[in-house]
């Protein structure tokens, strides 16, 4: 049996934690999608445990990459070789699997972004700023309110013949508008389709404002599971919109690919194996009284040893934690 090098990608987001196990040919051996539930440390440990069980015999982990808003936390816990922002990770994944893509529409749990790819590199991007109307969390909430499982949301939208117009500029107003339309007696499928269109309209006029959307267009992120939204994008853009096979874990996929590229430079991995889960990771936060900024410092420690700190503006806590860290622990 030949020994295979595998790569791990972690995407720790606000709503979901995704883990990917990738081989050197970029075949996905395992993907895990878990809800964060506000407990990133516990859920990440759980995900790693699941991932370990799916490693084929004779294979070992040669590198790990972390992305997502919790990338620092993930990197500190497992010892990641690459820590990258979501935009670069998503771009990387798409360039690998759909090399002729020029536009990525990404809608996740709490943020949405557009990434433009030209000549094989990211050429421009934008993220939603202050408003979360039209992201996954909002759809989740509306599905729950209508008593429809989120998985069926898109399929129901497709049944609509005459969608109603929902004011999608703001999540709160959209909700009251939906209630109003329900009370007028509009059918559920027409309302849901209307909501999909409102969300797409909102996305294109905020995140996509002024961006040149060229084919091939790729739609990914958790919301890409929603066929109704995909169809609404196609209607609005008058072009086909592709949803990649691993649309829901593209960030983790990109992180794993980046880890592979990094390790090809001849480094040894910092990945602390699956040992890290047996350690008892605890995160605590305190506020620093060094100046009037009163920064909220997050401290991650295992077995009483401080692993990492972040959140300080001046860097005094994070630097101290880095200095206290023992030399790289390898498997």
């Amino acid at each position, binding site marked *: 049996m030949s020994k295979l090098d595998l790569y791990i990608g972690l995407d720790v987001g606000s709503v979901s934690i995704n883990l990917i196990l990738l081989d050197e040919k970029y075949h996905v051996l395992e993907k895990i999608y878990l809800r964060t539930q506000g407990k990133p440390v516990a859920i990440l440990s759980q995900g790693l445990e699941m991932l370990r069980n799916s490693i084929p015999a004779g294979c070992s982990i040669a590198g790990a990459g972390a992305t997502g808003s919790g990338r620092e936390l993930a990197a500190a816990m497992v010892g990641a070789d690459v820590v990258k*922002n979501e935009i670069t990770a998503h771009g990387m994944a798409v360039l690998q699997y759909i090399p002729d893509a020029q536009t990525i529409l990404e809608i996740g749990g709490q*943020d949405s972004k557009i990434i433009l790819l030209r000549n094989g590199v*990211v*050429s421009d991007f934008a993220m939603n*700023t202050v408003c979360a109307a039209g992201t996954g969390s909002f759809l989740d909430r509306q599905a729950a309110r209508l008593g429809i499982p989120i998985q069926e949301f898109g399929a129901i939208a497709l049944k609509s013949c005459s969608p109603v117009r929902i004011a999608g500029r703001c999540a709160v107003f959209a909700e009251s508008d939906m209630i109003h339309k329900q009370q007028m007696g509009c059918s559920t499928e027409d309302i849901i389709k209307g909501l999909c269109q409102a969300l797409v309209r909102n996305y294109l006029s905020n995140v996509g404002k002024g961006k040149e959307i060229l084919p091939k267009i790729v739609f990914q992120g958790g919301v890409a599971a929603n066929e109704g939204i995909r169809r609404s994008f196609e209607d609005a853009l008058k072009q086909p919109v592709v949803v990649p096979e691993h649309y829901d874990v593209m960030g983790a996929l990109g992180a794993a690919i980046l880890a592979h590229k990094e390790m090809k430079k001849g480094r040894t991995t910092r990945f602390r194996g699956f040992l890290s889960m047996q350690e008892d990771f605890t995160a605590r936060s305190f506020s620093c009284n060094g100046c*009037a900024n009163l920064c909220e410092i997050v401290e991650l420690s295992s077995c009483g040893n401080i692993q990492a700190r972040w959140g300080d503006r*001046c860097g005094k806590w994070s630097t101290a934690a880095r200095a206290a860290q023992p030399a790289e622990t390898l498997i």
Partner: protein
Amino acid sequence: MTITFPHMGRIYIPVKALFDDLGVPVVVPPPVSKRTLEIGTRISPEMACLPMKINLGNYIESMERGADTIVLTGSCGPCRFGYYGIVEQEILRDQGYEMDVVILDAPGRDPRPLLKQIQRISGSSPWTKIIRAFLNASKIVERVDELADILLRKRPRELKRGESDELQSRFEREVLKCRGSKEMLDFIAVFKEKADSIPERRDASPLRIGLVGEIYTLIEPYVNLNIENKLGSLGVEVHRGITAADWVKTHLSFDLKFKRERKLKLKKCGNYLDLCIGGHAWETIASTVHYADTGLDGVIQILPFGCMPEIVAESILPAISRERGFPVMTLTVDELTGEAGYMTRLEAFVDLLSQKKGKEYEQA
């Protein structure tokens, strides 16, 4: 009379020296912090832009330390800042604070009101002393900016990571112990030498990014979440489209060479924008064109939420970006700006530039 003034980056250094030289007691407001912003936000109209909220916070924190007179520049400008002096005065009065506000307005035809105001805040100093103090202060503005420029160049090249940042924070901690412009200038000279001798990596070829946008957000590190240091630690050499020294040279000095160059730069962006539309929008466009032409890798525009001139500039930037194949990113900041999203954008932009550069290198 104990004077205070609003913060704007490192402008507190020359201003302190100025009043020291004049022998007028001065309170430097404590560094801008969350508390400053909270105070300012509480008493400002919600739609006012971020600089004003921070100004008000500065005044009140200085008042707690014994200041009773506020000095600030007004410009009667076509941007809201021009009215902030008056508005701030009214707000303080409504809130029941007893403070004198002295607004230094750029003179129209008649310079006498300005001169009168200057005399008022100068104690009973003779004019020769006042003029000398102002000249020295403007020298300090330039020296401080020169020091900052050295550190901007060093940061992506330093051998030991964090050395430049450390030197900078030591400078900022200790500079206020100096009294008067003479001491201040000597102190800055020492630090310039120290900065110059920070060891560099030989092989460093950092990305170069220009910062453009609204002057206050560019200059005040609290507001722009310390973008210069953040970019520096990502390995980027930062170029500043506008500095405090530029402002002084434009508005208060007779540096004809500088003024001529500035005019030339503004002229060169004429097909995008050929007049002043308020604030520093014209400079934003001109600097972007200039940076694109001089081979920088990209530009980041920063503006406070709701800044009219910069919003106009923002809508012109994509045209420059498209026509010259020059990456541009806009960041809007206000009291709600989240650091995580901000950092993600900076990192992604730097990645974008380095990928683009790598690609161009490959093809060449």
